[in-house]
């Protein structure tokens, strides 16, 4: 186990380094941020000052060396747009994304497993058909549309929820609700498919023959075996939210990392782009590790 963890840590460190090199040079290929930072009518002198101040006149390889040296001391550099440490800017935003992802994925996982398992129990029954119908709609509806319709319905017409923003528990309901829809549809389908296979297997038939009640058969015997593919999909969906729920962040004014990343790319705020990529990459690495561990818990045959 310990050697597995060490191996994974090294592998991730190598991919992270590769990512840093690629993003550093690719982002700089787009040009320097001076003209974007200063107004179009700024003097040439001011532009030159800006370049000198941020070391943009140095050869790229010198800039990269400086960046790596700072990085070795956990200094991610300063955001040129915000005049604050890039890591602070990213972590502030990432906290929101992390909480959003954690709550959404918990709610999605629980509901998809319960609904998917029940649907698989009587394939073709009313519950199964209803669940499949709505999950397919959910998995295919564009989230910006759901978000706007939700605001018009629940805030403007009914007045039940605030339109957007943060502050109270009510503010979280719509963003989570909108983020819930697509992964719920997808995971439910995987749970259902996987459960149908599991419920048709020999050990379930044996259990039934022995007179075990339906509920323990579904949730104890079959579910554990059906969970392996489900966990993989959960990981994919969680990674998508960790990378930033840009649409939801934009519409609901949620200060997450997705919008920050896109804004920083457009503004050529390189330090923030790099810091954001490293923080999300690290989070996804940790999550993948947890998924691997979950595999070994669920399936005793898997040993690292």
């Amino acid at each position, binding site marked *: 186990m310990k050697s597995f963890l060490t191996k994974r840590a090294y592998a991730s460190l190598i991919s992270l380094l590769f990512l840093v090199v690629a993003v550093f040079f690719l982002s700089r290929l*787009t*040009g320097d*941020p001076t*003209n*974007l*930072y*200063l*107004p*179009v*009518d*700024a*003097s*040439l*002198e*001011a532009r030159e*000052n*800006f370049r*000198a*101040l941020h070391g943009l006149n140095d050869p790229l390889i010198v800039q990269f060396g400086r960046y790596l040296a700072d990085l070795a*001391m*956990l*200094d991610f550099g300063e955001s040129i*747009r*915000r*005049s*604050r*440490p890039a*890591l*602070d*800017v990213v*972590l*502030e*935003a990432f*906290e*929101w994304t992390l*909480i959003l992802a954690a709550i959404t994925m918990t709610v999605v996982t629980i509901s998809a497993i319960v609904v998917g398992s029940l649907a698989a129990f009587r394939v073709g029954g009313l519950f199964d058909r209803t669940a499949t119908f709505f999950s397919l709609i959910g998995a295919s509806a564009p989230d910006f549309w759901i978000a*706007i319709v939700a*605001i*018009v319905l629940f*805030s*403007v017409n009914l*007045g039940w929820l*605030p*339109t*957007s*923003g*943060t*502050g*109270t*528990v*009510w503010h*979280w309901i719509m963003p989570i609700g909108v983020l819930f829809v697509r992964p719920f549809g997808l995971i439910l389908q995987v749970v259902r498919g996987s459960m149908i296979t599991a419920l048709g297997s020999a050990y379930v038939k044996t259990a039934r023959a022995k007179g075990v009640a339906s509920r323990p058969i579904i949730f104890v015997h079959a579910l554990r075996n059906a969970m392996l593919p489900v966990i993989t999909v959960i990981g994919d969906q969680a990674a998508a939210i960790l990378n930033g729920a840009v649409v939801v962040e*934009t*519409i*609901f*004014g949620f*200060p997450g990392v997705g*919008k920050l990343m896109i804004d920083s790319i*457009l503004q*050529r705020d390189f330090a923030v782009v790099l810091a954001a990529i490293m923080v999300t990459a690290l989070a996804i690495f940790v999550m993948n590790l947890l998924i691997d561990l979950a595999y070994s818990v669920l399936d005793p045959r898997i040993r690292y």
Partner: protein
Amino acid sequence: MPGTKNTLHDTEETCMNIRSYLYGSAIALAVAIPAFAQDSDVTIVLNEDLETVEPCMTSQSNIGRVIQQNISETLVELNTKDGSLMPRLAESWEAVDEDTWRFALRQGVSFSDGSAFDAADVVKSYERAVSDQIVCEIGAKYFGGMTLDMEVVDDHTLEITSDPAQPILPLLMSTLTIVPSETPFEFMQQPVGTGPYEMTERNVGQNITLERRDDYWGEVPAVTKATYLFRSDDAVRAAMVATGEADIVPLIGQEQATNPATDFAYPNSETTYLRVDHGVAPLDDIRVRKAMNMAVDREAFLGTLLPQDAEAATHIVPPSTLGWNSDLSPWPYDPEQARALLEEAKADGVPVDAEITMIARIGNFPNVTEVAEALTQMFGDVGLNVDLRMYEVAEWIDLYSKPFAEGRGPSILLAMHDNSRGDPVFSMFFKYACEGLQSGFCSPELDQIMADATAATGDDRAALWKDAFAMIHNDLVADVFLFHMVGFSRVAERLDFTPTIATNSELQLAQINFK
């Protein structure tokens, strides 16, 4: 190394913050605390969070809307209605000689940190604005190409000598936000000013709160507290006033502005135009440029792709600017005449069939793509061969500004220019001087008029600018002017506040009253 230590410490602190944040959120989720707002509080929704709260960056719209004259004041204030100057932190000013101005500063003014305002604060504010240790937008935008020598006569008298002479120095001082002389040469995270409000809370990405100061030198404003929120979606911002979550949205979309009781159109001091690059044939031929101007049916845009209240433009600056030339009228829509001019030029060997690239910027203003497509079509109708290219902002800026690429093809560039400062000097050199960063041509004669106008005062100044505008529009046919634009605001009915041309760059809480 002290640097290393600090960095590690910061990281530790960040981890702590995350932890305390997670606990905090858990509690917040469990107990939703309703916020009780007073009737004299207002909530304002901006389209983006402020990147910084540094007073020397207030020339950026949203930073200006929060800080300018609310937190940080200027010596002089521009009245955008009539272009006149009003005293603010300076009680009066006079020209001592051609290049020196004397300002009498207001006494008994204090900053929000308790320190008293005096001449040294003005000196430091200017030094910061033009410092090469920090890059301030105000310095880069308004104080380039000149040096100001500030002499403190006494605590409340300041003499400013400029090289070269600046007849509009008092107007320039309406852009310089004043900070205490103790302010270091780094961006402020907590702005300190002499204004009627101080920033009491800032949660990055979420909100900024300004509260009224008790020890403000001037009249007590009606608004006690202002909360700024940030939403990038137009429809959401507009909905927030409708649901009572917000009071003022300085910027909503044209399609949201449907309620006459709350929605206002206001001239936003922006002008759209096509910058023509005279350096490459066939655009070096005046007949081709005239033909382009006559090919555009400006009326057809109004009330369709652009708001009804926008106006066909004849200047690069809005009508409230000094020297505005009311004798100029927009080029008539005359495709027949345009075709004839192109035929004539073609007969003289001008390559009018050459492909002209139209460069436009994604998201520059609402419907920009459709406007650019319509323009391309109109040029095509008179026989020009125009190819539209849409660019992201960064690439577009590079194409807009010099140095222009060698061996480039003929191009026209769709741009929008903002001048809310009341004087053409802030626009004309950049857009039309031979050395101008975004100028597509060079006319020594025009340069001379502009130099004379810049050095002149009063009626002479206005007359010279008037000549310069006529020369650009009629004689040189330099560019294709399109529209003086309008913006839309939504204001809750309980407020007595009307957005003006100033709303594009500032939003003075002191000007808001309650019905």
